[in-house]
Each structure stands twice: as structure tokens, then as C-alpha cells.
């Protein structure tokens, strides 16, 4: 989807850095200089291994970071309003303009409150509806997210329903006030494949209805299924970004390529090359390229200089010092 350049994006994160302070230890840099844009009606997938800072990014946008976390740089704009600079705007936006769907639906729901009441609470508090009205709306919403027999289900407690149903409840809660931005942090990771598919379909319907979706996952298959746009994250920073189809078909960055090669694919079954090594210690990050310790193409320069995210072709960018050589090799 193309937008006129003048239009303000729904969500615009610029140069975001988040660190965690630790007692008697160097602060942990969880996110560094991260930029990301999400537009209405589009799904941006944030893709990266576990520990790469995806959840921290999501929590920063929602203003849900833990007490020991601090955003040290950057801005987060929702429809142009800077949420980091204006905590009141952040509070006002939560639930109403932006909402979040969490990974573990069991722990995300209040264990001692009926699920119907947890949805109805949105209407009661934000719109001042009566108990009965809010209940009716909650049941309507449950029907909308394809929960069978919603009248009965509404009276259940979270532990009494299946993981798939619970995640639908969490989604219903998130979309209750039709927020323009929806952030989903690995919403299907805890679910089995068939249930996963239903939830992904639901998200697709929501974006088609005009919501902007930031979808976080470490699963390339899921990303391929839902993404319009992909942001590849590694060790707290963006490595590569571009339209989903192109990034997945022709990855530029060595990390993206390694990531894609690390999962089995239908066209080459069994050929699975895990990336050697692990994420750098977030308290002791490489001075140069963050991926250098694991990169097969790393040179001395890579360990000294931190590459910037640079535009390669319209809509695509990568942070790699040797990107032209990589592309050259790829072309052959």
C-alpha cells in the first residue's frame, strides 16, 4: 500500500533506545536506535529471535515498561502526538486509540473475574455504559471474534476455556473501542497450528477493517502469512526492513538470510542451517556491527564500525557495511 509522503503515519517510532538499570551492574541495552512506522490498514511484522527486544519495544509504545526500564532516546508518535513526551496522552490513548494483545492469554486475564466482565469493563469504564448494556456489547464482541455460544462463555473464568478461546477474549478486549493501532506480541505462539490459523485470520480481518497492526513474532512462517511489511530485529536494533514479500524472497542483510536459512522450508526439506552462536550479551554489546560475532561475512571493519540503516531501493533498507558486496554475491 502506498501513501502520500505528507501523510502522518499512524505510529512512528524514531531512534528509540530502552535500557534496564541493574543493581551493581552495567545497564542492559535492550533496544537501541530503533525506528519503525505503522500505517492504518497495514500489518507490520517485527521479526527476530527471542531476546532481540521485540517485547520491550511493544511495551515502550504502550507505556508498560517495568520500573527499572528507561527510554533514553527517541520518540514514539501516535497520530503525530509524542507519547513519551506526554504521559497524559499516553494514558488517554491506552485502550482507546491503541491496544495490545499478549502472548500468554492465561496470565494476561484476571483469574478471578469472568471473561465477559473483563470485556464489558472496557465499555463500563471508557463509555460509562450500564452493566446490562456493557454485557450486551461484550457478547456482541465475542460473537464478532467467533466465540461460539458467547452468552454462556461470557460467564466462564479464564482457566475454564481453551487457549484459543482465551486469546479471542483478549483480542475482543483489545478491539472493544475500535483502536486504530493494535499491537500483538506473539499472540499465536502458545497455540497449536490450527488454532493459530484462526487467530491470524481474525487479525487479517481487523487490518482489512482499517486497523494498523504491529505484529511481533519469531516465527517466519507466521510472518509470511500475515505481514505487509517486515522489520527484522536483532539484539535491540533493526537489521533490515521492507515489504514482506520482497524481504522474505530476496533478503539483503546477512542476518535475515541466516534467519531464513535456519528454518526448514517446503522446497528444501531437511536443509536447515541454524545460526551459530547466540545473541550478544545485552550488557556488553559489540562496538561495531551487532551481528559481527556470528556473521560469516564479517571483516575487521565490521567489528569496529556500527552500520547505519541505509536505503537500498524504494521501501527497503538494511544495516550492513558490506551490503553491496552481499548483493553482488547474491546476484550471481
Amino acid at each position, binding site marked *: 500500500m502506498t501513501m502520500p509522503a505528507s501523510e502522518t503515519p499512524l505510529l512512528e517510532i524514531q531512534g528509540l533506545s530502552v535500557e534496564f538499570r541493574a543493581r551493581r551492574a552495567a545497564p542492559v541495552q535492550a533496544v537501541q536506535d530503533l525506528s519503525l512506522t505503522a500505517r492504518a490498514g497495514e500489518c507490520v511484522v517485527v521479526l527476530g529471535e527471542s531476546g532481540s527486544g521485540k517485547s520491550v519495544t511493544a511495551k515502550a509504545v504502550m507505556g508498560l515498561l517495568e520500573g527499572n526500564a528507561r527510554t533514553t532516546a527517541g520518540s514514539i508518535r501516535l497520530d503525530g502526538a509524542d507519547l513519551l513526551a506526554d504521559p497524559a496522552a499516553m494514558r488517554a490513548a491506552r485502550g482507546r486509540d491503541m491496544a495490545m494483545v499478549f502472548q500468554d492469554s492465561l496470565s494476561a486475564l*484476571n483469574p478471578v473475574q469472568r471473561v465477559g466482565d473483563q470485556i464489558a469493563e472496557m465499555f463500563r469504564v*471508557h463509555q460509562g455504559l450500564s452493566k446490562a448494556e456493557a454485557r450486551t456489547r461484550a457478547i456482541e464482541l465475542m460473537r464478532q471474534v467467533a466465540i461460539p455460544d458467547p452468552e454462556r462463555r461470557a460467564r466462564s473464568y479464564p*482457566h475454564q476455556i481453551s487457549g484459543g478461546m482465551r486469546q479471542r477474549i483478549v483480542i475482543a478486549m483489545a478491539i472493544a473501542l475500535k483502536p486504530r493501532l493494535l499491537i500483538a506480541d506473539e499472540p499465536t505462539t502458545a497455540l497449536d497450528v490450527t488454532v493459530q490459523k484462526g487467530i491470524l485470520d481474525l487479525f487479517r480481518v481487523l487490518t482489512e477493517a482499517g486497523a494498523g497492526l504491529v505484529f511481533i513474532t519469531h516465527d517466519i512462517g507466521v510472518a509470511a502469512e500475515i505481514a505487509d511489511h517486515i522489520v527484522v530485529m536483532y539484539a535491540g536494533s533493526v537489521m533490515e526492513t521492507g515489504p514482506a514479500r520482497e524481504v522474505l524472497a530476496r533478503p539483503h542483510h546477512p542476518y535475515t538470510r541466516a534467519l531464513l536459512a535456519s528454518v526448514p522450508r517446503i522446497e528444501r526439506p531437511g536443509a536447515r542451517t541454524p545460526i551459530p552462536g547466540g545473541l550478544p550479551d545485552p550488557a556488553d554489546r559489540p562496538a561495531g556491527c551487532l551481528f559481527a560475532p556470528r556473521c560469516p561475512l564479517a571483516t575487521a571493519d565490521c567489528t569496529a564500525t556500527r552500520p547505519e540503516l541505509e536505503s537500498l531501493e524504494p521501501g527497503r533498507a538494511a544495516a550492513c557495511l558490506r551490503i553491496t558486496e552481499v548483493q553482488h554475491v547474491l546476484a550471481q
Partner: protein
Amino acid sequence: MTRYILLRVLLALSVALGATFLIFLVVFALPGDPIQALTGGQHVMSASVEAALRERYHLDDSLPLQYLKYMGGLLQGDLGEDFTGRPVSAIIAESWPTTAKLGLTAFALEIVVGIPLGLWAGLRKGRPVDYAVLGGTILAFAVPIFVIGYTAQILFGINLGWFPVAGTEEGWPTSYILPAVVLGILGLATTARLMRTSLVETLSADFIRTAIAKGMPRRRVIVNHAMRNSLIPVVTYLAIDLGGLLGGAVIIEGIFNIPGLGFQIFEGIKQQNGPVVVGISTLLVLIFLAANLVVDVIYGVLDPRIRYE
């Protein structure tokens, strides 16, 4: 829910049987002869009177048989008589209201002071209030109860003269406040600590994060989401503690010279007055079990995960 309660009642009944038997065993298997103790070891009693007493209290039967006869009486509301012929039920009826007043006053203090203190500390985690509450509770745990009791007596009873030093002559509340504070201080400290820890833990739970993400105001997040969940362990503790408080407090009733159940047990043990000790102890076990039953029910009401298991 009905099945759940029924199960708990059955469990409580079997525990009651086991516990009363144990008490019976311990008291009547005590070394020493109760008839001898009654007469101070002097042979002032004629052989026929002694035989009658032995007959009356089944002292020559085997222990299990004694127990069965005792339980038989208990089921008919007969707690027996002590060795001087006073019905145990009369002793209980006389001392129970005193103990109940003392225990309930202490219990009220635990709730009215302990819970708000814990909430306050929990909401101000890591701030001076939190540390002050922590320090106060550690002090309450560290100082032996009789030291607290005597200190309170000297300070508030003798030096300041705010409360009577001992006895129950001035009635409730004047005579009961000081002993109730001393009696409840441990429970109060435990309640505050439990409440604080439970609230802090709950506040970092995922569903609290969800409530904030839903845009719920802070007040609602705390009251509607955090509080009910964090009250579960506190209520459990309180209900169990109530069983203990209503069972009389041997030390406190001794220090403040309060003629309650604890006082009677103490006297009963001193005089090897088996029927009194067994009678009151059995009652205490039953109270304790009833309190536990109440806990289970409250627990089920507060936490649906347990209710439906």
C-alpha cells in the same frame, strides 16, 4: 460448590476424630494419677470413694474404651465433669465469653490495622513507609510475647495508667484493649506482611499489565484487579488465625489474669484435671476445624480456580 463444601466437611470430621483421640491419648496417658493429684498425694480418700471415682471416669478401662465412652458422651453434648464434680460444659460456658471477647477484639485489630498497613507498604514499595512497616513487623516477631505483654502492662497500665493492669473488672472494651493488642500483635504483623507481599506480587502480574493496557484508571487497577487477587492468601491466614484466637491464649490470659479458656486449660494441666483439659482442647480443635472450613469456603468464593476443581 456443594460437592466441594461437602468434601471439606467430611475431611474436617475425620481430622476432628483423629485429633480428639490424640488429645485424649496424651492427656490420659500422662504420668501420674489424677485421683492422687486431686488429694495432693495424701491418702485421705476411702477406698470405696476412690473406686467410685475410678468407675465414674472409666479410669480402669483401656484407653480406646475410655475414648469411645467419652466420645459417646460428647455426641450427646456431655463433656463430662471434672474430678470435683463440676460439669466441664459449665466451666466452658463461664470462660468462653471472656475468651471470645478477647479473641474477637484482637482479630478486629488484625484486620482493621494489619490490612491497611500492608496495602500502604505494598503501594509504596521500597519507600520509607515500606521499610517502617517491615521494621515494625520484624520487631513484633523478634520480641517474645510475654516481654511485649509485661512491657505493655508496665507502660500503659502502671506508668501511664491508661488501661487496667490486669483482670476484667472494667469490662469490654477498657479491660480488653491492652491484652487484645498484645494477643493480636503477631497476627497483625503477619497480616501486614502477607498483604504487602501479596499485593506487590500481584501488581507485577501480567493481568495487571493487561488492565493498564486496557486504559483502566490506576484506582480501578488496584481496587478491582489487584486487591481481590492479593487478598486470597491474607483471608486464608486470617480465618485460620481466628480459630487460634478463639481458642484462648494461655500466656496472655495468664499475664493479664483473664479467666478465659486458656486460663482454664492452664489450671487443668496443673491439677491433672483430665476432663477439663480434654473437654476444652476438643472444643478448640472443633473451633479450629470450623475456622478451616470457613477458610475453604471463602477461598472457593474468592478464587474460582479452586471452586471448580
